[in-house]
């Protein structure tokens, strides 16, 4: 059997082998990183989530296969789960509403101001995430002009913004806005303006052109932007911690408290896993619905 393989074919195999080895070498640093900082912690976290408490000793756990940790954790904390998805969902929608026109402007209308505007988009990131969120405490403070203004119009149910869900959503929207703007900009900037002219030439008004050409072609950016906003916003706990009350706690806060304060490692780990699974399911359904694999 071996003898019938022509010499050229054998040679060809050698060449492809060498090529594919280069590929593996390129992957090596990334894979190592993933193994050490994702795969191994992932497994230990999963094992922790199944541990059982040692009787009489708080904060000590023994390896077990206690699957009931999951339903128990869910039963106790499902309101925070729902709140996380709702807050993150609203923040993502708001960020999209704010970011799309801005990204559109930068991509199509900004001209020579384009580079400057992009720098301005990421400029706040030069200050720390924590610092920026603290700043929002001042901005939304009870005596601040924003709260005073809305109170004057009698628009606030609790007569305040700080320490309410509104403040948490505002903080989330603000903090993740650049992650929405940048992919949107990248997608919009790639659209050939001649396509818009062609659409205009083919009896499409400005609105029809947006609906039929610009929007579908920007969908990859919309999908990327919403994911980059929604996923970290769901797991975030800083905004809720600093801007919300105990009534506005998100799942991130619960996990953090369980780990650090209650030292209830199995519950915290189980919650982490449920959060991951829920996000994965949501993201996959979303990508399916958006039909991005169909797009260029």
């Amino acid at each position, binding site marked *: 059997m071996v003898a019938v393989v022509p010499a050229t074919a054998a040679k060809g195999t050698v060449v492809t082998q060498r090529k594919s080895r280069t590929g593996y070498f390129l992957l090596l640093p990334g894979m190592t990183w993933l193994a050490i900082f994702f795969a191994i912690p992932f497994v230990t976290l999963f094992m922790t989530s199944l541990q059982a408490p040692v009787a009489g000793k708080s904060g000590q756990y023994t390896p077990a296969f206690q699957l009931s940790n999951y339903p128990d954790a869910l039963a106790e904390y499902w309101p925070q789960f729902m709140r996380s998805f709702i807050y993150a969902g609203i923040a993502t929608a708001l960020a999209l509403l704010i970011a799309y026109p801005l990204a559109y402007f930068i991509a199509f209308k900004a001209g020579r101001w384009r580079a400057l505007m992009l720098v301005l988009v990421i400029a706040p990131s030069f200050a720390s995430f924590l610092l920026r969120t603290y700043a929002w405490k001042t901005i939304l403070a009870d005596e601040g002009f924003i709260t005073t203004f809305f109170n004057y119009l009698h628009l606030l149910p609790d007569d305040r913004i700080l320490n309410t869900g509104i403040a948490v959503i505002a903080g989330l929207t603000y903090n993740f806005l650049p992650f929405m703007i940048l992919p949107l900009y990248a997608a919009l900037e790639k659209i050939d303006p*001649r396509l818009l*002219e062609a659409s*205009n*030439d083919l*009896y*499409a008004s400005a609105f*029809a052109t947006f609906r039929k050409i610009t929007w579908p*072609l920007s969908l990859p950016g919309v999908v990327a932007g919403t994911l980059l906003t929604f996923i970290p916003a769901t797991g975030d706990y800083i905004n809720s911690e600093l801007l919300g009350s105990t009534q506005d706690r998100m799942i991130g806060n619960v996990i953090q408290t369980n780990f650090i304060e209650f030292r209830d490692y199995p519950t915290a780990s189980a919650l982490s896993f449920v959060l991951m699974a829920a996000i994965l399911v949501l993201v996959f359904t979303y990508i399916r619905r958006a039909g991005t694999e169909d797009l260029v």
Partner: protein
Amino acid sequence: MVQDRERNVEDLHLANLTKMFGDVAAVDDLTLTIPAGSFFALLGASGCGKTTTLRMVAGLEDPTSGRISIGEKDITSLRAFQRQVNTVFQSYALFPHLDIFENVAFGLRRRGVKKVEPAVNAMLELVELAPMARRKPNQLSGGQQQRVAVARALINEPDVLLLDEPLGALDLKLRRQMQIELKRIQTEVGTTFVHVTHDQEEAMTMADTIAVMNAGRIEQLGDPASIYELPRTVFVANFLGQSNLFAGTRVSTDASMIEVLANGIKFLVPTERNCATGDEVIVGIRPEKMTVLDLPDREKIPSGNNTLEGTVVDVSYAGVSTQYLITLSWGQNITVFEQNVIVGDRSSVGEQVLVHWSPEHTFGLAGGETLLATTAQAIAAGV
């Protein structure tokens, strides 16, 4: 079928059309009527204003002043999507997220046509792309994409179809094929085609009427043969094909011929082929109208022919013809094309030769222009 459609095609009128970009007039007081149903070519080097003219007709650019109308209807102030004018873009600009069928159906759908299938299928049939209906544009070859672009525009039965360098991105062989294809489609549908190109050969093969544009103005307008045979300006003489030009002074005039003295040599130009009004005349002759002879054969020249003497400095054999570059006694180089009818009978570099041609091919242009003014531009445009 498409050709059975009741159509009421009307002339396209441009009146005093001007477009300023800053201080520069891209299109300068252009007045032009493009007859209904014609294949009209706007020919010029890049930057001559031809694409700007086209974009103004399409409604993609607002004129600084002037009027555009189709028949009696003034369309100057209509937006692009309100005009019965469609464009085949240079880059095709096919919508990448829509398949071929939807690309072609786009215009009909935007105008609220309910049942698009019959028209789209007929149009895909016309451009021979029916089997490709469900492919995406990036799965098609350049030539196929080009035909989709034509179908997408034509399906709307526009009053005028604008083609902006539509064959520029295709290779030479495909370009020739598409020239014939486009001409066939135009004959079949009878729509007015306005074709913008810098390729003089393309313009001459396809168009009934050519307008040669230069610096925002039309230099000459007419059918391909008459423009080529009788150019009226130095620019046209140099841009559309090549010309040998000699600046001189008129010394005598009679009913049939004028005599021009240039560099001490007398040239005969038919009076009706001379458009110079003054005494300064530029004598012009196309390279393929000239014949090269060896010095001893002087008596073979028919009497009355214009004759020059020079030295061959370059010979290039190009299959169907041989190109000679000949230096005259006053240092000017002229080009002569000779059909390769007889094998082996060619003059060689360094040889003294006679060049002659019949006065009936000679043309006279208004003097005072520099002879080479447009050559560089013509070379840049790939002529």
